[in-house]
């Protein structure tokens, strides 16, 4: 997921060419307070006109407690991007209020309530505490994300490259997403020159369950894809497991072994997930 400042036409018009799975047009932190009006109109026009190729288009709006949030919704919701990303989400009540406004705008424009989804950003201690309810109570919330920079600020701690200060939050957010069967996106890695650090952090994020990672520079996309894309060996093994599972199931066998290792339902589920990521079907 590539963050693009909402008031930068050059970056927006090139956003689709870098191969990111998702483009996040940012009206919030990347836009100066006295340029919010300009960015809102620019993002609206660009969504209507620019080809972002296969990338999903999401828009991060300003929080409804600011003078900008409602105006952002009025301008962006009629365009029905793939998702609205809501910053500093702290409670299910907030999400309910946001959805009410979104649906009112959709009704005004005769738009369905089930097309555009919502990504809730968890970036305060209160948000972390309430994350399961935020993730699980609304069908339109199809992803949650952790905002590491704001979270460290809210916790009055200093961001460190090892991420130790936000480790509990990361794992709690992942668990809430898994329990709710939705995606969970890791925070950005702020040092664009530290490729090793980016790879290390991305590998850790994958290991603990994140399904993707946000980036602030196109240079970071390849490393993240490299980490999250299953290797040929992983795909081969997964294919073999699922194929054997189908054969054994047809013969009425639930548990079997491959190379001396037990294969049961959780192993098959993991293999199926790898094949899904690799877009491979078992013939």
């Amino acid at each position, binding site marked *: 997921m590539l963050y693009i400042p909402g008031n930068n*036409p050059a970056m927006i018009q090139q956003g689709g060419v870098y191969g990111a799975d998702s483009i996040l047009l940012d009206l919030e932190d990347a836009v100066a307070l006295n340029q919010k009006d300009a960015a809102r*109109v620019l993002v609206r026009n660009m969504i209507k006109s620019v080809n972002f190729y296969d990338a999903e288009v999401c828009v991060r709006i300003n929080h409804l407690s600011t*003078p900008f949030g409602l105006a952002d919704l009025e301008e962006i919701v009629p365009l029905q991007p793939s998702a609205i990303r809501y910053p500093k989400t702290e409670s299910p009540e907030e999400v309910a209020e946001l959805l009410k406004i979104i649906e009112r705008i959709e009704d005004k424009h005769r738009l369905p309530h089930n097309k555009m989804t919502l990504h809730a950003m968890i970036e305060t201690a209160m948000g972390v505490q309430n994350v399961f309810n935020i993730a699980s109570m609304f069908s339109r919330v199809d992803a949650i994300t952790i905002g590491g920079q704001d979270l460290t600020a809210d916790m009055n701690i200093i961001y460190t490259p090892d991420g130790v200060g936000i480790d509990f939050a990361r794992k709690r957010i992942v668990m809430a997403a898994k329990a709710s069967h939705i995606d969970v996106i890791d925070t950005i890695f702020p040092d664009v020159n530290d490729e090793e650090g980016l790879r290390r952090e991305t590998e850790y994020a994958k290991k603990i369950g994140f399904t993707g990672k946000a980036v602030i520079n196109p240079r970071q996309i390849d490393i993240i894809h490299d980490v999250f894309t299953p290797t040929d060996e992983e795909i081969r093994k997964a294919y073999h497991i699922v194929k054997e599972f189908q054969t054994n199931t047809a013969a009425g066998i639930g548990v079997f072994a491959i190379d001396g290792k037990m294969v049961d339902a959780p192993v098959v589920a993991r293999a199926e997930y790898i094949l899904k990521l690799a877009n491979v079907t078992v013939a």
Partner: protein
Amino acid sequence: MKPKIAAQSGTFESSDVIFLIEPMADNSGRKLEISSTVMQQFGESFHNIVTEMLDSYNLTDIHLIAKDKGALEPTIKARLETAIKRSMDQQEGTLK
């Protein structure tokens, strides 16, 4: 209709355009000063976009300066809309 106040929008960055708008005396019409790094190729089109937008807002008695660094049409329209709304005192971020 004429602008209430002087206003600007956009930047001097590549692929962007900066608009400056200020009100002029009653019945003085429009004074447009447009310069662009791609004037030879797209000058006429740029001028048409500006004129059509000013027409759609029914704006006269206006002095408009545009410095274009190769902005696409959606950017030109966005920046001009912002400048117009700011000059009508309809949005925040207004140069007063």
